[in-house]
Each structure stands twice: as C-alpha cells, then as structure tokens.
C-alpha cells in the first residue's frame, strides 16, 4: 500500500466516524410506525390513526407531500373510521383547506406547489359529519390551535395520557351510545390494528 492510499484510507475513516448521512431522529419516527397492516396496501386506506406527514413530507418516503392529513373516528370508545366527514382547516390568514374522509376515516390535503399557497400556522380545525341515516349533524371544533404539525396523530396518539388527548373522534358519552355507528362498507377494516373496540373487531 502506498502512503497516498493509506492517507486516503485514514481520512475516509475519520470522515465516516463523524459524519451523518441520514436523519436518525426522523428515521426513528418512521421506524416506530411499524410495518403495514396485513392485507392493507399502501394507499389512501392505509395506516389509519398514524401520523401521515411523518412520511408524506418533502424528502420523506411517502408518495406525495401533505399539508394536513389524519383519521377521523366516530367515538371515544368506538374508534371506527367515519366515512364522508368534512374536515375544514383554517390557517392564520383565514384561508380554508377542505378534505373529505374515506371509508376508513382517512383524509389528506396535498401540499400546494406554490409557496404562497401553503398554509400558515397556527391553524384551526372543525369536522362536520352529516349522518344520512339519522339526519343527525355533528360539528366538532378542536378546542386548541394546531401549532405547526400537519399530522393529527402527531398529537392525537393512543392511548390518551399526559401528552395526548387520544384519537380524534366525533361523538362521546350519550351521543356515542345513542347511535350505533358501525362504519361504512369498506375494502379494509374501518377499525385499525391496535385500536380496541368493545364488541367490534
């Protein structure tokens, strides 16, 4: 081995020892989400209840970048995805961003391509759900603003506790027990893996 080769090898070893080629924190967040649910392919019905923007952000492994995304469930005790709920987010300059949930409760709002069209935080969110069966209308406004994270589930983790109010839901208490919501027909189970429901799943 020549001195020049040896020098190059030593320098390369030093650079490798102190360099970072990945974001270990972000990688940790992604790995913590675990594998896909068996039988549910990546797409609009996958990973209900998980923080979408962890992957669906600029440079992330998800297909497409989302400004806001998440899952709306029916009840506090009955975390079944709500089909057809309208999610309205209003940013700090009063621009609305709207989306409708699919049968597993997922919604997403693509990130606008133009910088000027992107939402400015903080944002406020309200969910509207018109139940065609009972003609009941539910309107639930989040009591606090969204600081800067576009994923509902970044804060709305399960279970509820010191740092989470629990999953996003429309009905609780008497409203939840009075209405036997069973979810819409869906190609995937409307109750995600890991969510325990009394009498369902």
């Amino acid at each position, binding site marked *: *081995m*020549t*001195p020049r*080769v*040896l020098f190059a*090898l*030593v320098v390369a*070893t*030093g650079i490798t*020892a*102190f360099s970072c080629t990945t974001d270990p924190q972000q990688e940790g967040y992604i790995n913590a989400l675990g594998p896909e649910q068996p039988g549910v392919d990546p797409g609009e019905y996958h990973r209900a209840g998980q923080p979408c923007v962890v992957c669906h952000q600029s440079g992330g492994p998800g297909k497409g970048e989302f400004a806001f995304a998440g899952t709306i469930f029916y009840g506090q005790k009955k975390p079944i995805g709500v089909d057809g709920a309208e999610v309205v987010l209003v940013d700090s300059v009063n621009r609305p961003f709207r989306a409708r949930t699919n049968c597993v409760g997922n919604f997403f709002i693509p990130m606008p391509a133009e910088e000027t069209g992107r939402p400015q*935080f*903080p944002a*406020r969110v309200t969910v509207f759900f018109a139940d065609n069966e009972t003609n009941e209308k539910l309107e639930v406004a989040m*009591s*606090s*603003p*969204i*600081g*800067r*994270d576009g994923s509902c589930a*970044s*804060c709305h983790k399960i279970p*509820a*506790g*010191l*740092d*989470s*109010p*629990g999953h996003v839901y429309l009905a609780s208490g008497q409203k939840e027990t009075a209405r036997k919501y069973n979810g819409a027909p869906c190609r995937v189970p409307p109750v995600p893996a890991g969510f325990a429901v009394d009498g369902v799943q």
Partner: protein
Amino acid sequence: MNIPLRVAMASVVAVSAGLLVGGTSACSGQADPSRVTVVLAPSQDDFIGNPPAKGVSTYLEARCGSLDCHGQLGRPLRIFSSNGLRLPADGGPNPITGGSPTSTEEKIANFQAAVGLQPEEITRVVAGGGQYLPDRLYLVTKPRNQVQHKGGAVVNAQDDGDQCMVSWLIGATDGDACQRAATRK
C-alpha cells in the same frame, strides 16, 4: 515506497482508536455540587395570574403550549397546559390532555421553565432597573422571530402577546393584554 499492509491496517486502527478516546474524554467532566446560580426572577404571582386568566402562563399555554410546539418534554421552554402536555400528579391519578384545567403546580412549572431558559440574562434584566432591556431575552425575541424560531413569528412587537411578556419582565404586568392574547382566535 510501499508500506506493508499489516502496518497500514494497524495505523488505521490506531487513528480510529485515538479519535474515539480523544472525543470521549473531551466530553467528560464532573459537576460541582457546591456551585449555584442565583437567579432574580419577575413575579411568580403575576406569572400564575390572579385571576389565572390574566396570567402570563395562560397566554403561554394558549399560544405556545400545543403538543406540537412547546408542549413537549424536550423543549428548552417546556409548557404544561390543559390542552397540551400535562404534569404527572403527585400521588394521584395523572391528568389527561384535554381533561382538567391547568393546575397551579403546572403553572409553577411553566414559571420555572420561563425563568430557567436564560437564568443569567433574566437576572440582569430584573436587577438592571431598566439598564438591561427585556428585548434581549429569548422569551421576547423568539416569538417575534427576531431570533431563529421554528414556530416563526407568533407575535408582533407591542401586540397583546408581546406586551404581556415584556410587561411581566419589567415588573409591570399587563394582565388585560395577557388575557386578550390568550383568547385571541
């Protein structure tokens, strides 16, 4: 001149070991438990607020304490609040985000976090009697985005939120400004 491979590999191993040991030893040190930092702080009572709606803590909880911002344990300015991060209860059931109102213990913890952000600087402001302006503190410059702030500009200079914080730091808390800033939509 060719260097034998055995010598070359030994050199690489030696350099790597030297980098590892040198880097590790440079970070080690022993804490001196006899050293203390004396901190002069603005009024804790004004921070908590009487009534609490007029307190600085209520403003911080509403505007800064969301779970995706300062409602996280790892933040230098860590805020506990009813709709955000909760402080574990001492000997009772733990509160849940969105459950009970912010407790007095949580507000005291918020006070400690605010004062502990820049303890030496806040001491200079409080002790300086006007010589040291509060505008040098992160509690003021960060929400104004005058210093790099991940949350961007949360207040404008002299708006209610800014006035709430600055007035507390100079010892003349404007509780009405704090209340307006906390309830602003």
